[in-house]
């Protein structure tokens, strides 16, 4: 039974969109390297396990280490050297977390609480793929495996238990959410772009991903309309055809630079009958406005202009912040659970050492005694065997319970003390050698995860 000595201490060093400009983040991402950059950190002597996370908003090294300060120095040293960033600059723009704060940071990143737009879900996928890479290269071990899986489950819990991601926080997305509240299912619906601005394009893209089946693009210059309709997969029409198209479409996104209204109230009043009163939704993101706001008064017509959409977005952002508070609470409680798992890792080898030592003494003394007692029958032999066994287990019972149940503050002390009292030093040495073995062998992870099952 191999004793697996965990790296135990967790260290996070990294930069994100708040602490470092994009030039620095780009450099630290180490994209130019031939080997995966994770290898670089993996080979450091104090680093036991490592995950390297690199996205457009953050670059982080998450490591399980033997000892904070030496690991920190080694990581900073090699990172600055390879990325060619001066050390002071590096230290100025990085954050370094250890222990509990490192755990918190990883949980927050996974749950998108540390993201530029709080609640955006991409980061979880990015973290998962960073972990997969580390896992495939054999760079993650018992501690980081557990930490990552816990982070993923925390993120999922936060997603389901809070409404952190349920609110649209960009204008184009808010427009799509509104469309869904009007039309329900967007499949089978058709949309028209009037004017081909960037934001209109984005909104159109959102509509397409949400299942819209037909798209028309009208623009002052037909070339641009054709170009855009090609990229989006729609049909280009001229501005003159807009009025007829209005009879067909369900959603209109307008973003022309025209000084007056492009869509007038009389026009819409006229077309509602040929439309058979089907609902018509205008998203007006032009300034000055393209769509007469009075169209909103026509039955079954809904007009939202850019200010109204912005208001929706602001409210949603505020809502997300509120939900983020709930999420932090969930994280707090998950950190406690993870910490208690971590500290349980220390106890096991000590308990096992204690038991092994007692057992070897028992056996040795038993054979010695039995050598002198030759006339015993089987029953008596058994009784003596039993006596020694129960002596050992009764004596060890209290210290083991103490180790298992002792509160976490003086646990470390207790561990050291008990190791000293029973002179269990041998254990630590053995763990060292095992650690080295596992460091070099590729299936560290399997072993670690089977060991992590208690």
């Amino acid at each position, binding site marked *: 039974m191999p004793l697996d000595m965990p790296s135990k201490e967790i260290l996070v060093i990294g930069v994100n969109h708040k602490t470092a400009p994009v030039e620095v983040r780009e450099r630290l991402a180490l994209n130019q390297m031939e080997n995966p950059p994770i290898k670089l950190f993996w080979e450091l002597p104090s680093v036991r396990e490592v995950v390297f996370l690199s996205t457009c908003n953050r670059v982080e090294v998450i490591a399980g280490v033997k000892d904070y300060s030496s690991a920190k120095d080694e990581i900073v040293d090699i990172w600055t050297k390879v990325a060619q960033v001066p050390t002071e600059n590096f230290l100025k723009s990085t954050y370094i977390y250890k222990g509990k704060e490192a755990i918190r940071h990883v949980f927050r990143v996974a749950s998108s609480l540390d993201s530029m737009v709080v609640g955006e879900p991409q980061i979880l996928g990015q973290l998962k793929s960073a972990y997969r890479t580390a896992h495939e290269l054999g760079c993650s071990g018992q501690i980081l495996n557990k930490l990552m899986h816990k982070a993923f489950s925390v993120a999922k819990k936060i997603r389901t238990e809070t409404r952190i991601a349920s609110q649209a926080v960009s204008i184009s997305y808010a427009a799509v959410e509104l469309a869904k509240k009007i039309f329900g299912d967007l499949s089978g619906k058709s949309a028209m772009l009037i004017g081909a601005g960037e934001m209109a394009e984005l909104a159109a893209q959102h509509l397409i991903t949400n299942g819209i089946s037909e798209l028309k693009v009208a623009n002052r210059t037909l070339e641009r309309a054709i170009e855009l309709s090609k990229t989006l997969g729609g049909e280009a029409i001229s501005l003159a055809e807009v009025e007829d198209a209005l009879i067909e479409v369900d959603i209109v996104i307008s973003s022309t630079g025209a000084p007056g209204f492009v869509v007038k109230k009389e026009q819409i009043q006229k077309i509602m009958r040929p439309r058979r009163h*089907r609902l018509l939704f205008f998203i007006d993101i032009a300034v000055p406005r393209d769509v007469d706001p009075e169209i909103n008064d026509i*039955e079954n017509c809904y007009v939202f202009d850019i200010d109204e959409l912005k208001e929706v977005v602001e*409210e949603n952002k505020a809502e997300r912040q509120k939900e983020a508070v709930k999420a932090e609470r969930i994280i707090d409680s998950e950190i406690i659970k993870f910490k208690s798992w971590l500290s349980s890792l220390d106890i096991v080898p000590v308990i096992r050492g204690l038991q092994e030592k007692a057992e070897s003494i028992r056996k040795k003394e038993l054979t010695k005694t039995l050598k002198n007692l030759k006339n015993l029958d089987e029953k008596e032999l058994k009784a003596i065997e039993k006596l020694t066994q129960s002596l050992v287990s009764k004596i060890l019972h209290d210290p083991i319970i103490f180790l298992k149940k002792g509160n976490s503050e003086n646990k470390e002390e207790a561990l050291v003390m008990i190791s000293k009292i029973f002179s269990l030093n041998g254990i630590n040495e053995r763990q060292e050698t095992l650690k080295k073995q596992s460091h070099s062998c590729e299936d560290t992870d399997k072993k670690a995860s089977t060991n992590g099952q208690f």
Partner: protein
Amino acid sequence: MTEFLLHLTLIAYILATAGFLVNLITLRKDVEKFATYFLWAGLFIHTLSILLRWMSSGHPPIVSFHEVFSFLAWALCLAFLLFQMGHKLKALGAFISPIITLVTILSVIQPKKILPLPPVLQSYWLPIHASISLISYALLTMSFCISIMYLIQERQIKKKRLGAIFKRLPSLQTLDTMAEKCLKIGFPFLTLGIITGSIWAEKAWGAYWSWDPKETWSLITWLLYAALLHQRLTVGWRGKRSAYMTIIGFLALLFTFIGVTYFLPGAHSYAS
């Protein structure tokens, strides 16, 4: 025993209503699930109570106000549960379950004595006519509820109040389609109810149609719903206008169902 069962039913319905309202406020899915279970339990006990009353009275229990309300609540509950199985229209429970509860309470507070059936009513047309009519009432009540939801949601979007109410109600188009669906099933039942009624009238009184207030009002109701459906299908009426029409139709229905008996007594008054 029947009375005890009906009280038990009422308790289940009240719990379900509370659950749906809590779900509406907190959006907790588990509460909604329990509310639905309570409704199913209520429906089961309710069915037992109706069957028991049928056995002890010897005629279908759709004669007195007490029985009619009880049957209507039962039909409404069944219609809602079947509808939800297929469509899962969110927040509908919070609108329908209070009505189910209310109708059950109306039933409970009516005199419950079993009365001997007047000779005119002793016909197999009684259960056919009455149950078909009451089923149509249940379906049209559903479409009324959905239309109310439509008008609330429509107002939220028009006024650009995209707060808690907006988030909790389904989309406009979904509401409109579902209201139409209930209407399209409810209306044939209403028609059938009137036809069976008139056949029965011919058997009992010798004339298919005698312009008795109940008959007149059910014709008015029928015409309102017919006009609405016609406009929906030909001109493409939908949304707000259709929702208002549905509500007007429902008010006429309500008057036909209860009002006529109180204000314009005729041959149709329920036994009491």
